[in-house]
């Protein structure tokens, strides 16, 4: 086990309100595995990523849970240890390649800066390494690109540079927060393939945050479905996408344009996410659920094994199919 998040709860305090952004979240990632984290905006995907990197704002608190990375609890590390962890052990790729690069620094220098930070080599060697890492993300003529500024590159090129940056140390875990959302479809596929290949080559694990189930189906071995700061369903991609158990997962899959019948309107999930200031007593999805039971609004379901015999597939639902 490379990373194990156990029953993590994160709260934000704003004015008088306490917002529970994550509640009892447990996610584990094995060495070399690509795990998709799926959910709509506000479901806690990015908060999870920021918590792993120790980058939560000052108004956040972590009342419960642990994040174990390579046997060390990240939540107990001090500032210096966290700085050494970031980039070196855990890299991050952001959604917008347009703004994630330093606008007035050459590409090669940006890469060399990160490489120089994490390896005991001179800046000159780091720069040479930077050119190599540009070649590794399949940039043609890496020496020329290293001398360019971000504004001289296209969106897809920039995202390749961002990936090169995040993987330059090289880290054992890569957190990719919607890495393809800002790119057009043809480039999306290339970028995903690139990340997949790099991860396979180096044994890097990837935590792929996305709201696109198509992306999950393409590259992830396992998937975690989050809703309103809770994990509602998790399992192998195969299991979760083909035999979804939680109504939310089913609704998400139903909303996929690829699966829609031509001529019919896409199905959308009615209602909106619950107010995280006052979490419902029962299931967080109950208010939007088409098949809710009386118990759903009374008591919150826990994550339990779905479908007898498949240990990897878990769901938090009172209507859990356990046959």
């Amino acid at each position, binding site marked *: 086990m490379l990373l194990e998040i156990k029953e993590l709860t994160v709260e934000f305090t704003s004015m008088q309100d306490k917002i529970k952004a994550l509640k009892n979240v447990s996610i584990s990632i094995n060495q070399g595995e690509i795990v998709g984290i799926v959910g709509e905006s506000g479901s806690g995907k990015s908060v999870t990523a920021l918590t792993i*990197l120790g*980058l939560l704002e000052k108004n956040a608190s972590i009342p419960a849970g642990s994040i174990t990375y390579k046997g060390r609890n990240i939540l107990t590390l001090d500032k210096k240890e966290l*700085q*050494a*962890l*970031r*980039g*070196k052990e855990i*890299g*991050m790729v*952001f959604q*917008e390649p347009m*703004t*994630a*690069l*330093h*606008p*007035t*620094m050459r590409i090669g220098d940006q890469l060399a*800066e*990160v490489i120089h*930070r*994490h390896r005991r080599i001179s800046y000159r060697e780091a720069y040479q390494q930077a050119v190599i890492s540009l070649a590794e993300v399949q940039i043609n003529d890496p020496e020329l690109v290293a001398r360019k500024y971000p504004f001289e590159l296209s969106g897809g090129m920039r995202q390749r540079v*961002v990936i090169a*940056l*995040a993987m330059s*140390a090289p880290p054992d875990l890569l957190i990719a927060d919607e890495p393809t959302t800002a790119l057009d479809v043809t480039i999306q596929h290339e970028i995903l393939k690139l990340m997949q290949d790099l991860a396979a080559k180096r044994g890097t694990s990837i935590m792929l945050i996305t709201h696109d189930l198509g992306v999950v189906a393409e590259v992830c071995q396992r998937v975690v479905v989050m809703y309103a700061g809770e994990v509602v369903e998790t399992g192998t991609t195969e299991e979760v996408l083909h035999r979804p158990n939680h109504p939310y997962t089913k609704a998400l899959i139903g909303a996929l344009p690829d699966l829609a019948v031509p001529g019919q309107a896409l199905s959308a999930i009615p209602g909106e996410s619950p107010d995280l200031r006052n979490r419902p007593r029962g299931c967080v999805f109950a208010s939007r659920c088409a098949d809710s039971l009386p118990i759903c609004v009374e008591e919150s379901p826990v994550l339990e094994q779905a479908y007898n015999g498949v240990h990897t597939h878990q769901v938090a639902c009172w209507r859990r199919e356990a046959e």
Partner: protein
Amino acid sequence: MSGMTANTESISKVATTKPVNPFWYKIRRNPLTLFGLFLLLLILLASIFAPLISSYDPTKINITQRFAPPSGDHWFGTDEVGRDIFTRILYGARLSLGVGVAVVFGAGLIGTVIGAISGYFGGKLDQIIMRLMDIVLAFPSLVLAMAVAATLGPNLQNAMLAIAIIKIPVYVRLARAETLALREKLFVKAAVTFGIKPWRIIARHIIPNALSPVVIQVTLDIGDAILLVATLGFLGLGAQPPTPEWGAMISIGWKYLLDYWWYPTFPGLALFLASCGFNLIGDGIRDILDPKANR
């Protein structure tokens, strides 16, 4: 036929016209700014070529020539110990310009670094730094500069230090404001996730991107600093005689105004033109860079 050739000529003219630099174009359209630029150029040339323009020594005493009126030998006359006033004004330009540039660059550099640190780390450190700056800003700048210069002892270095101190808070505030905005930019946050240390982020990611308003402020402040140096010199708190400093020259010369009018008049005129030039340029640059002020 002739009409046709004229036509093709004008077309080819249009086609070969180079794109005009918008900055230069706007300066050209503003005669006052252009005049300011001319004055600045004059002062710059005077300070660079002072030894070539005049063969006199700015500090050499020649008692036989004291209080000589303006003439072919001494364009602006001589002072109470026979030094050529024109020469002293040339060397004074060198001093004023050097001091003005040095003080403002120094204050800009220190202020920017403090402001970036204050803005980046925030919290208590930020509070302490900003309240200190507020204290400095609370005093009228000239009074504070006089107090500092008088306390440290009247000489040119201390006058420079005093002016730097009153100028620093402006840069701290500018750089801090920029830093607060930059800190939230994704590329800075990304640098944090790559494990880059805070000091390096400030030095390489924040400051280079926070410089543009600082540079504008520097150009606006140089003229002001020159005037302040002269003011302190005039009050006896800056450069001391026999240094050829405009303020100090006026300070001694004004007693002779009625009998030897040229003595304080020409240094005063030089100071007037210099600060006039810098202010006109400053206004011009502000007009050009502020899109809202476009006429």
